[in-house]
């Protein structure tokens, strides 16, 4: 099948075959990353604007490298130093960017629905690089690519996503993607961090770490936003780390062939112990490497590169 969408906004809207197409395209992009000269002319003359309203070194850099390896011109429009700080609205910024005729706008914004809003306002392709607590589809795609590489397949696998599910766009995108591909998902955390009716997304809920991670193929730990203490959702980082941190001890409940993932940035010693993050089960750095390949694939499919890379 071919790619037909103008934008990549959510995992929820993708068909399983579309997810497969992105993953297959990304797998072929990895070959470029392995070359000594990592540059192909595929997107020469195309312009990609990275529009980031929230600080994000990792995701922005990943998109930037992806665009550059495909020879696109990549421009970073980061909000703190831009007109967003002067009170310009998202739509006004969008209209201004549109006037400069980019081919792809990659947007990260603190408000759920922001990417869809831009997609409606812009004729060019829009990639959602995270909209509030809603979705972060390229993160889910790179997670799926990583799991598929390590396990050889996706269907039938089981995953535990642990931590601040309520505020996590990574969790939502992964839940949609994994469910579509026939994986089973358990979300786990203290009840204050589990959003209401999350079962309606097709997941199981657990309130005990050892129970959640026993017998799963993949454990995905989420970053704990430290301001969650201020909202009286958890008592202390210390207590959170004790009951919800993945440590060599708590990992004893898991299978021998388990994969440990984290979307980063990691709070070492809080949701994950350093020796686990750096340990033999961890694929955290594979995720980062696959991030570039997935974003190359997405830019390639959306910007309509004609030649194969």
């Amino acid at each position, binding site marked *: 099948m071919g790619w037909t969408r103008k934008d990549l906004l959510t995992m929820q809207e993708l068909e399983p075959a579309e997810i497969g197409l992105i993953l297959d395209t990304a797998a072929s992009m990895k070959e470029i990353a392995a070359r000594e000269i990592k540059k192909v002319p595929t997107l020469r003359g195309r312009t990609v604007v990275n529009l980031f309203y929230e600080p994000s070194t990792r995701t922005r850099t990943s998109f930037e490298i992806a665009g550059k390896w495909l020879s696109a011109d990549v421009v970073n429009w980061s909000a703190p130093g831009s007109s967003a700080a002067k009170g310009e*609205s998202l739509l006004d910024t969008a209209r201004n960017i549109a006037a400069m005729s980019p081919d792809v706008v990659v947007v990260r914004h603190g408000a759920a629905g922001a990417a869809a809003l831009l997609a409606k306002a812009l004729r060019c392709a829009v990639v959602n690089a995270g909209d509030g607590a809603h979705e972060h589809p390229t993160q889910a795609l790179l997670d799926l690519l990583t799991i598929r590489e390590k396990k050889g397949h996706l269907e039938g696998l089981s995953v535990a996503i642990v931590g601040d599910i309520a505020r996590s766009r990574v969790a939502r995108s992964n839940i949609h993607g994994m469910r579509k591909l026939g994986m089973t998902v358990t979300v786990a955390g203290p009840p204050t961090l589990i959003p209401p009716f999350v079962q309606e997304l097709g997941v199981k809920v657990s309130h005990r770490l050892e129970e959640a991670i026993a017998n799963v193929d993949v454990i995905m730990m989420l970053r704990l936003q430290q301001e969650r203490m201020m909202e009286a959702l958890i008592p202390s980082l210390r207590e959170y780390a004790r009951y919800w941190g993945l440590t060599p001890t708590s990992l004893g409940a898991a299978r021998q062939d388990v994969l440990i993932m984290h979307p980063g940035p990691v709070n070492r010693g809080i949701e994950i112990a350093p020796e686990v993050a750096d340990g033999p089960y961890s694929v955290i750095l594979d995720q980062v490497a696959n991030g570039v390949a997935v974003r190359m694939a997405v830019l390639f499919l959306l910007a309509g590169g004609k030649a194969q890379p």
Partner: protein
Amino acid sequence: MNALIRGGRVLDPAHDVDAVQDVLIQEGKISRLGTGLRAPDGTPTIEAGGKVVCPGFIDAHVHLREPGYEYKETVATGTKAAAAGGFTAVACMANTNPVNDNRSVTDYVLAKARSEGVVRVYPIGAVSRGLEGKELAELAELAEAGCVAFSDDGHPVMNSALLRHAMEYTLPFGLPIISHAEDAHLTGGGVMNEGAVSTELGLAGRPSAAEEVMVARDLCLAELTGAHVHIAHISTAGAVRLVRDAKARGIRVTAEVTPHHLLLTEEAVRGYDPNTKMNPPLRTKRDREALVEALADGTIDCIATDHAPHAVAEKEGDFDQAAFGIVGLETAVSLLVDRLVRPGLLDLRTLVSRFTVGPARLLNLRGGSLAPGADADITILDLERRLTIDPRAFHSKSRNTPFGGWEVTGMPWMTLVGGRVVMWERVIKGGVDA
């Protein structure tokens, strides 16, 4: 002002009238109801055959935005919108700038209403100075100046002692306290109903319990003080249950519901249209059904629009940033006739009652009926007229509605205030331009 309204179906729930009759208006008052009435020579005649002649509709909860936010709405444009929507009177909330927490602001609003208003305007005074919930506003002077109720609408009074004192202090005036019932800690940063849809959309939620704990608190304080508390824009099945029980126990409580809570649910928020962002939020199907049932059985006393005009820029951006609220004056009657009365969920008489005698009683107003001697405030409905809701045609300064494009049958055809026609076929007569 004299007129003869001839041959319409006169529907006055306050006096149990529902019959084809003529209405004779003399000097701005209802003179007589009857068949084959004759008017003195030269009296203008309004042919109302096939139409429904009702007491003037009253909206107990609007935001006219003046003074301070004239870019959203003014007394002039808001009352035109009211007339266009079939309302002969509106009660306007205190969250202007400056806040209506002292009589000079009340005087200003009333002066504007006299000089530029198209329908009657009844100001609602603030409960607390600056709506800050810390000190009482000058409640006695506000009452003397003409305020018909007190409310910190939009800013729930979190300090229970302050609300208790407001209830006690205002008891001698006989005016209700209108409660925007939401616990501000429980609502937090929520922008929609908390539930399955907020979880899916990644938007912060406001739980039903945020409303219900405050309604329960308000009812306890009403019982303690003997005051009349009116629950604004009730939106949850649980809050309805609390009000129903309290009424059964004789507590002085009334409640209003908005057209949007009667017609829409949280499902409407999918797509992140900022015109589906309101406060309290759109709830679940179960809540919506409970509201319709409570409106029918009288647990809910009146329909109020919570007409909340906002400029385009305040409603076009991302959902989190967008302002809360929608305009309602020009869509309420058509929507409810079409979506509640036409399918048989509510009978017309009850709908008219909740727009007339319901709000009149709770605000102690003279209107709400067609009894001889009453002001000739009259709303005439055309139940057969089909129209498509077009926000560009609104008389309001603002266009923020989720109902644009809805096809409806039934509309307010004519509005009379004090016997004078102020709206006919959506055209405003009289008033001055803002």
